[in-house]
């Protein structure tokens, strides 16, 4: 069974009578009236079943893992012997097997490339015979609205290939639940997609037009596909030997309020979006400013609602960015106080001090000093606060999450360090109320990353360590001598393998 990382993205159960009648109706329309494009279809043997055994680590106590979880999903082989699947099918997997249709043998596979922001992964199968007799699939274009697509995969862990039909009901942008924050283009379909379909191809005219990846539990027959454009972007991204992901513009914008058109003296024939804020570490810093109107991107005119016409489709202008690679340049046209401006911008990834997207690190860095466990504050840690993590997490986390730029004024800071747990002993039990507090300084040494913690503990103030936390005026005082004397005892008592995970903390 394929894991679904977010309850907002549950697969819906199989088709019901209404769906069947709808499909029948559509089929009749297609067959007799010829309203939708004619579809050719050969049952593909390149659709693969994937078995994964995953181990998830506790973000607060990173040396502890959850019980091993077994799940299964789908994948497919593209030209060039690239075995593609969803990142969520194999992320944090310790052991992966893949199985071809009509063959009993399971082949060992490993993750070769994985992009959590795009929910895509490429697996490598060590056996040279795996690709024998497989007819690789090819990627196609974005399917047309209301056209018929076929989803192939292994839903609910069944051993035989399942193929379901559906229509393309919408092309839109939504948040990909695997990372929890990244928004990309999706193709919505009413094809019956279930747990286990994840990673499977969705085909039209024998070409892969998307990959099944998530559904909407609250709606009827709403399943989502990753479009072939994002898959192509991923395949191009890995050409240079590493996964860079999707670049960002680093702007906060708003559809243009009508009054701003006159106020900002935008020519009547122009349209665009209103810039609210520009990220200081983003590619548009010192290029765009608040109240500029962005009117065109790579020559595509932007409408007042932020959309452009791209390959005959009305999509968000951000699609241009999503189809670009890191360090690629794009041209922008904008108006400032009625004056037209043009500039080429080199796209980058913004080095957020607090990255709230899930990264699915296989093991996390930590430092234990004086029995206090310190970890990096990131998406994994925040998502630990449950389904509604963005409201349930402590106030300082929320403040830094929503107002990063306002509160991250320290250019030295790499990330925030949080006190995740206290291995309690007689000398440090009073630190328990400080759990989930963000470190500001230790012994007056500012804490910008985990490495600073170790350094700061070596600079005790007389016989004491003084820890100060973000948004808390009460200091935490620890006896320096006992802190070091009891360290090894505490590690042993709480069965911690080592005091710090040096590799990840570097």
């Amino acid at each position: 069974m394929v894991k679904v990382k977010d309850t907002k993205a549950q697969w819906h159960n199989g088709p019901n009578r209404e769906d069947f009648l709808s499909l029948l109706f559509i089929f009749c329309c297609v067959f007799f009236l010829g309203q939708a494009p004619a579809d050719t279809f050969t049952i593909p043997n390149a659709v693969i079943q994937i078995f994964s055994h995953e181990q998830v680590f506790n973000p607060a106590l990173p040396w502890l893992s959850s019980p091993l979880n077994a799940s299964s999903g789908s994948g497919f082989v593209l030209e060039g012997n690239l075995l593609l699947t969803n990142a969520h099918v194999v992320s944090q997997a310790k052991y992966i097997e893949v199985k071809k249709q009509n063959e009993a043998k399971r082949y060992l596979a490993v993750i070769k490339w994985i992009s959590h922001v795009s929910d895509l992964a490429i697996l490598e199968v060590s056996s040279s015979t795996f690709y024998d007799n497989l007819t690789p699939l090819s990627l196609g274009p974005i399917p047309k609205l209301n056209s018929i697509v076929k989803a192939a995969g292994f839903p609910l862990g069944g051993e035989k290939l399942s193929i379901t039909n559906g229509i393309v009901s919408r092309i839109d942008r939504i948040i990909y639940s695997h990372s929890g924050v990244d928004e990309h283009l999706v193709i919505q379909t009413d094809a019956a997609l279930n747990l286990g379909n994840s990673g499977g191809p969705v085909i039209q005219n024998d070409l892969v037009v998307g990959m099944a990846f998530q559904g909407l539990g609250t709606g009827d027959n709403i399943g989502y596909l990753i479009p072939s454009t994002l898959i192509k972007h991923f395949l191009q991204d890995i050409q240079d030997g590493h996964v860079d992901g999707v670049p960002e513009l680093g702007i906060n914008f708003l559809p243009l309020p009508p009054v701003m058109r006159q106020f900002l003296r935008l020519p009547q024939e122009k349209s665009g979006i209103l810039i609210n804020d520009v990220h200081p570490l983003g590619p548009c810093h010192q290029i765009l400013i608040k109240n500029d109107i962005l009117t065109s991107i790579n020559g595509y005119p932007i409408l007042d609602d932020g959309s452009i016409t791209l390959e005959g489709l009305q999509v968000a202008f951000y699609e241009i960015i999503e189809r670009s690679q890191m360090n690629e340049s794009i041209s922008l046209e904008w108006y400032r106080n009625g004056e037209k401006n043009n500039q080429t911008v080199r796209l980058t990834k913004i080095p957020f001090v607090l990255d709230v997207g899930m990264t699915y690190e296989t093991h996390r860095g930590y430092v234990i000093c004086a029995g206090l466990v310190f970890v990096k504050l990131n998406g994994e840690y925040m998502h630990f606060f449950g389904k509604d993590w963005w409201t349930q997490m402590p106030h300082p986390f929320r403040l830094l999450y929503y107002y990063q730029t306002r509160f991250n004024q320290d250019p030295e800071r790499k990330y925030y360090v949080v006190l995740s747990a206290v291995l309690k002993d007689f000398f440090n039990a009073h630190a328990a109320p400080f759990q989930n507090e963000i470190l500001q300084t230790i012994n007056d040494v500012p804490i910008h990353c985990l490495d600073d913690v170790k350094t700061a503990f070596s600079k005790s103030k007389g016989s004491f360590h003084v820890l100060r936390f973000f948004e808390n005026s009460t200091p935490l005082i620890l006896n320096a001598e006992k802190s070091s004397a009891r360290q090894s005892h505490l590690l042993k008592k709480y069965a911690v393998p080592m005091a710090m995970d040096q590799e990840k903390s570097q």
Partner: protein
Amino acid sequence: MSKYWVYCIFFVLFSCLRICGAASREPFKNSVVFIKTDSLIPDYRRPWQNYSSETQTGQGIAVGPYEILTLASLIQYHTLIQVQTSFQSTFIEAKAAQIDWDLNLAILSIDPAALDQPLKPVSFTKDIQTGEKLFFVRLTEGRQLLPVEGKIESPEVYYNPLSGASFLFFRLSSSSSQIETGQMVCAENNRVLGLVYPSKNQINFLIPALILDSFLKRMKEKPAQSIPKAGFTFSAWDQPDSRRFLKIPDQEKRGVYLSEVFDFGTGSTELKEGDVLLNWDGKDIDPQGMVEDDKWGKLSFTYLFSRSKTQDKVKVTLWRDGQKQTIDVVMLSFHTQDLPIPYHPEGEPAYILEGGFLFQELNLNYLRTIGQDKEWKTNLDPLIFDFLVKNSFHVFKDRERMVLLTRVLPHPLNQGYFHLKDKILSSINGKKIRNFKDAFDMLSSGTKDQAPYLSVDFEDPSVPTVVIPVNPLKQANLEIQKNYSIFTLSKIPDEHRGYD
């Protein structure tokens, strides 16, 4: 025959009990009153209107021939107060004579001509015993005296989060659910102990004579004085290493750590963050912040504040910079209306509705429309919550009050801004907004100055600049008023006119 005697015995016993009960209630017959209030509670979310009229009932105790003591919350936002006595069948109108919102107490006055006979004032006794059997006396709307039994459970220091005041209450228990706001609490020998303060979750408290007498005395002063309030927060400081870090000798067992010192209230000028309070007005404070009361045992030391009067000087011994010091601290109070993020226990909400943009002051009354205070941590925009944490008792660096754009009533004039809500204003037409009057002045001067646009910017830079065209504003306002049935486009109560 035997059955006859059993009936007789029961009849005699029942009659005795009735006589005893009547006897115990009789002295208070002319001292307790039934109160009925009608109130119009302002709707801070739609400040141009009120919630529908509400009727509350409660009890009052005579503290003078024509004066009644009751709870202030019973008469909050009242439009009419009526009282009924045991000896008069008609309701009589009462007026709110004095109110202390910190203690939630009020004195009502009645026109002597309206009463058939004067009320019988009671005296409160300070002689309270925990576990003592007592009864709550209530006058029903049908003028029946109804006593309900109960007992005192324990003393408790109650902190009112809205007013910032702490005082000594007693937790009560009773098997009856018929306990009403302001009900008289009596003990054996007809001793009047105080009145009932109903709290949430069916828990009732006794406001004791100590507090009531102090209130009645303070209300006689001109002007009426408020109860002193703490101007700091503290945390336990009992961990030996933490104490040694501050060089507190091991033999010194007292002391609580001052984690925050406010700009308002007692100690705001004399105390410093990081001080360790050892003794307050002769009472030693333990590391958890408790003092030993001669009668009630360990209590939070903040209850000592209600024993003093504002401007009293008390001796405070503290540990500061590695030394023990004794200083004088002046007992101070503050009104919640004067705080940077105020709470207005009475009056009307201030608002300006201009072009469908609704501007309001950031105050606790408005925040309470978003949820209870415990929910603010998750419900509120974290920036507003942060200001709430930092500025509830600290003046803002650059302003007196905060003004919010609370919502946008859709109209073609404000198209594109409908999604904005609860955003903190920073400036209008480039002028810093320091209080609600600034916002009002700028919005009205913008229209008078014939500037073509009003441009509103916000504390959060990612919020778009709101631009309001001035020319079509008058017509748009009329349409908005009509469409949304809004009687008045702005309300600026007097307290918001007094800045500068």
